């Protein structure tokens, strides 16, 4: 590639990108000074506003077919920082914004603070952290500089950890500490990588990097360390030690945001790293190694999920398994006979899987939270009769399950179709076996849970708390989204390829 290319310039509407980041930041600062009683109101305005901004950016990118770019402070990289919204970023931004907004609706029941006379702890922390997660995710999706992305990653971690131990029980404190320490280990490894990359190329801008990058030990070492650091933060098997206790112990709304949104941040950075910053550097052997980790996550995570006795832990292990699916895109995209077509297909599949898992898993954690609130426990063997008491909740859970299994027309189905297509096109049938086995194991635990909840209660069912309708609606809304996601094939799936010239338009033909 030519060493000197025309530098990026701020595009029209690029200012929207700044807005997407500034809005949550303003929310955090205002919540601090106005106090916890207003935090929910601030979030109630700013999160939907963020969603609207994300939608506008999405439309601009989709219609324009060009990435949006904003040069912060007018300083061109390598000196300055750019914000860049390509197809991947806008798709993820919109999806995460919807999920976060609906989680916000759901959380009103537990963290509502409008009526309170004084500031209380949990609501302030929850709403500020929710806005912080929204801002950090936007930053991760838009950031064009690897060091800015490091700061965004830390922002995400610092926002996520307090959510784990929001109720202050000992086991959640332990889980939070475990999470924090392992995540810090991950980020510091990422930081080593950025140092080495800067040392080699004198820039951390992703576009400039992709033009200058060459095959040399320092770059490979940097890439290795960054990837492993991000694996640790994404909880890719066998580095998932922190995920089950953290996601299972947190309050329902927090579990939903952790499982659906937060792990996707570090995963997105891995994609950015290999697909955008260091294109063509991932060797076949390395991509197979990543695939093996993903496959073991699918098999092991699903089997352990099958053996769980508590619903939230089951869902958490299901997240471990579903994270594995995300990583199957690497061996498929970087196969021995590279063709731009499979490259784009695998990327599309991975992103679809990310988004459909986000919606489905958030819905399932919400449903589990409602069950917990109603019954006072979530022991699977004692869930009998709950389906009759909370039909809408269980319906949401079931729909989410369908998406995880990958039945049509869910987003999970479309993702699996694309993944299978790529396995066949690249003649790597062994990944197809893993995908099939994973789907069957998933259907087994979904079936077990559903059959328990529909079965007769062991003892007369006593509901401890009435479940507000809007919480059920929020869960059902997310579940329906995950089901309808398969229909994106009819429309904007091409948007994922905007801004990546090396791969032609792909998707379902």
């Amino acid at each position, binding site marked *: 590639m030519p060493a000197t290319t025309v530098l990026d310039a701020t595009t029209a509407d690029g200012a929207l990108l700044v807005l997407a980041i500034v809005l949550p930041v303003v929310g955090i600062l205002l919540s601090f000074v106005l106090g916890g009683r207003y935090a929910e109101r601030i979030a109630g305005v700013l999160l939907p506003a963020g969603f609207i901004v994300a939608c506008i950016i999405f439309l601009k990118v989709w219609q324009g077919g060009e990435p949006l770019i904003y040069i912060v402070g007018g300083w061109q990289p390598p000196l300055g920082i750019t914000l860049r919204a390509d197809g991947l970023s806008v798709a993820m931004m919109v999806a995460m914004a919807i999920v976060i907004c609906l989680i916000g609706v759901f959380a009103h029941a537990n963290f509502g603070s409008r009526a309170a006379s004084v500031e209380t702890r949990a609501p302030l922390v929850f709403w500020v952290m929710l806005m912080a997660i929204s801002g950090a995710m936007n930053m991760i999706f838009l950031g064009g500089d690897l060091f800015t992305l490091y700061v965004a990653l830390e922002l995400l971690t610092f926002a996520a950890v307090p959510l784990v131990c929001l109720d*202050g029980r000992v086991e959640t404190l332990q889980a939070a*500490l475990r999470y924090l320490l392992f995540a*810090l280990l991950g980020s510091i490894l990422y*930081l080593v990588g950025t*140092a080495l990359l800067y*040392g080699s190329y004198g820039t951390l801008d992703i576009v400039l990097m992709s033009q200058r990058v060459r095959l040399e030990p320092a770059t490979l070492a940097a890439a290795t360390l960054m990837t492993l650091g991000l694996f640790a933060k994404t909880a890719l098997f066998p580095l998932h030690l922190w995920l089950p206790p953290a996601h299972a112990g947190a309050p329902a709304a927090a579990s939903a945001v952790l499982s659906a949104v937060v792990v996707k941040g570090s995963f997105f950075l891995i994609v950015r790293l290999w697909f955008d910053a260091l294109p063509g550097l991932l060797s076949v052997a390395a991509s197979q190694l990543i695939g093996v980790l993903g496959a073991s996550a699918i098999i092991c995570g699903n089997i352990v999920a099958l053996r769980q006795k508590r619903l939230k832990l089951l869902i958490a292990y299901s997240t471990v398994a579903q994270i594995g699916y995300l990583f199957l895109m690497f061996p498929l995209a970087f196969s021995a006979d590279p063709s731009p077509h499979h490259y784009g297909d695998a990327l599309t599949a991975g992103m679809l899987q990310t988004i459909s898992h986000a919606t489905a898993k958030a819905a399932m954690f919400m449903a589990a939270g409602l069950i917990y609130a109603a019954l006072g426990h979530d022991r699977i063997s004692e869930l009998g009769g709950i389906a009759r008491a909370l039909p809408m909740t269980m319906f949401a859970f079931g729909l989410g399950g369908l998406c995880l299994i990958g039945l049509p027309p869910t987003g999970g189905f479309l993702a699996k179709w694309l993944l299978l297509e790529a396995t066949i096109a690249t003649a790597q049938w062994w990944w197809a076996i893993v995908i099939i086995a994973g789907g069957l194991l998933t259907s087994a635990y979904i079936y077990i849970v559903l059959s328990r909840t529909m079965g007769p209660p062991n003892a007369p069912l006593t509901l401890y708390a009435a479940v507000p309708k809007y919480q059920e609606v929020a869960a059902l809304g997310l579940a329906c989204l995950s089901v309808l996601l398969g229909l994106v094939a009819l429309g904007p799936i091409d948007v994922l390829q905007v801004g990546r010239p090396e791969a032609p338009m792909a998707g379902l033909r």
Partner: protein
Amino acid sequence: MNAATLFGLCGAALVGIGLYGLITNPEPLRKILAFNLLGSGVFLLFGMIARRAAAAGLGGDPVPQAMVITAIVVAFAATAMAIALVQRLADETGRASISSDSSDAVDGEGKS
């Protein structure tokens, strides 16, 4: 060997020492300490890169130096949060540990 490379090697070694401590030490507080050691090793790598790139009359490239300053503050914030967690845990249980289930107790973390 110039000074930059020397301190770079020192940073690499500190990374190793920090990783070792973070992995093998069962005490959360010592893990936090090891994390700081690891972090300072990484910062020294940045320092080496900055020093190596000295030009334009400056003793080093100011961009990585500025990054280190940012990273130091972030690392401090992380340390503060981790220590607060350890202390709260100690208040609740009388001891701090990051293991959550009984199967973990055998590896020593549960008893630290």
